[in-house]
């Protein structure tokens, strides 16, 4: 049994899951776009099928599609799964789109325990709620942090626990904002705004 190419993997996946689309990223990397509702059944089959045998989750990450140049405008958050098979030596990338407002994706931590930490990180930084994760806590930022920093519309904090974020005379550069919108400079905590808050 040798490693399967992406086209061969696609063929087998399509035979059972016609809703899964094969796509290429901007730099030519092929991936499968999976509907969130079919993710769990698909990865269970990918892991258990004798010819595929994806026994390792190499990476689980995510990104914000907002303002992503070569993608049609979308308000979704993407979650990326990189699977690898130590038995068959082939790999596969899956992507799941989750709408920004109700950002819920089923957890795969029951299949690959490595996903426990990955999913906590994606939850912390992008705000994707992984349904079924046993302890979905923040992993990088403090537990009482407000917002998810890697979202493109994240508003920078002006203070944390009463300590102002910026020094006198400092201001944020490239404050995240939507295209066409005015700069959102509203401080998250009105009690003690930083002295050098960005101009409104």
């Amino acid at each position, binding site marked *: 049994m040798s490693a399967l190419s992406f086209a061969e993997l696609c063929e087998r996946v399509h035979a059972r899951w016609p809703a899964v689309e094969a796509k290429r990223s901007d730099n030519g990397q092929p991936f499968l776009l999976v509907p969130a509702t079919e993710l769990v059944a698909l990865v269970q089959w990918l892991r258990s099928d004798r010819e595929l045998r994806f026994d390792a989750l190499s990476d689980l990450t995510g990104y914000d599609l907002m303002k992503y140049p070569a993608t049609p405008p979308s308000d979704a958050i993407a979650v990326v799964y990189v699977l690898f098979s130590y038995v068959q030596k082939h790999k596969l990338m899956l992507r799941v789109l989750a709408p920004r407002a109700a950002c819920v994706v089923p957890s795969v931590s029951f299949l690959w325990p490595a996903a426990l930490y990955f999913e906590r990180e994606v939850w912390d930084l992008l705000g994707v709620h992984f349904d079924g994760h046993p302890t979905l806590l923040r992993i990088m930022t403090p537990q009482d942090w407000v917002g998810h920093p890697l979202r493109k519309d994240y508003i920078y*904090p002006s203070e944390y626990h009463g300590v102002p974020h910026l020094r006198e005379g*400092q201001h944020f550069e490239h404050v995240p904002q939507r295209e066409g919108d005015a700069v959102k400079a509203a401080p998250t905590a009105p009690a003690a705004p930083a002295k050098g808050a960005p101009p409104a």
Partner: protein
Amino acid sequence: MTDDPMMNALPGSTKQKAGNQLDEQIHLTAVDEFLAWGKENSLFYLLFATACCGIELMQAGGPRYDLDRLGMIPRATPRQSDLMIIAGTITHKMAERVRLIYQQMTEPRWVVSMGSCANSGGPFSKWSYSVLNGIDKYIPVDIYIPGCPPRPEALIDGVYALRERVRRYRTLGVRETVPHIVASADAAFGCHFGKGGSKQPEEPKA
């Protein structure tokens, strides 16, 4: 009269005339000055570093720069440390831990802020949501050392500035609270030992 240079260096020691065996063993000084002399020459620093400044801190503690010769020995617990060198980027999350460690140190305690990140946020100050722009928002800082990261010479320069401060510390009196900033040109180019270094910025001639 002893030949021990360390004992002769005791501040305010009254030199006794030779000839009396007992006097050779006796040095007279003020208690406060004696305690300050002891503190100055045994500044144990906390083993604590959060970023690349820590590499320079390790270099300064290594055999080439050898902080040991100043009586500075790294301690792995804040309970035994006199000095905390904030070497590296401090995030909001870390800053509360830093304050906890600082509070665990026994008085008198000193803090050296090493490098741009600990001083003011450095390269992260305008673009980061999580980095604290200056550790002095959480704990009082005695010495600021500019540089990104400062060379070991700059750190040693800061240590000498701190030793001046420790020498003036009075157990029964008031300690200085105004922070000292190491001269940036000296610290950045590491030419503070002796004047007239080749990289010393020249004074513009009027």
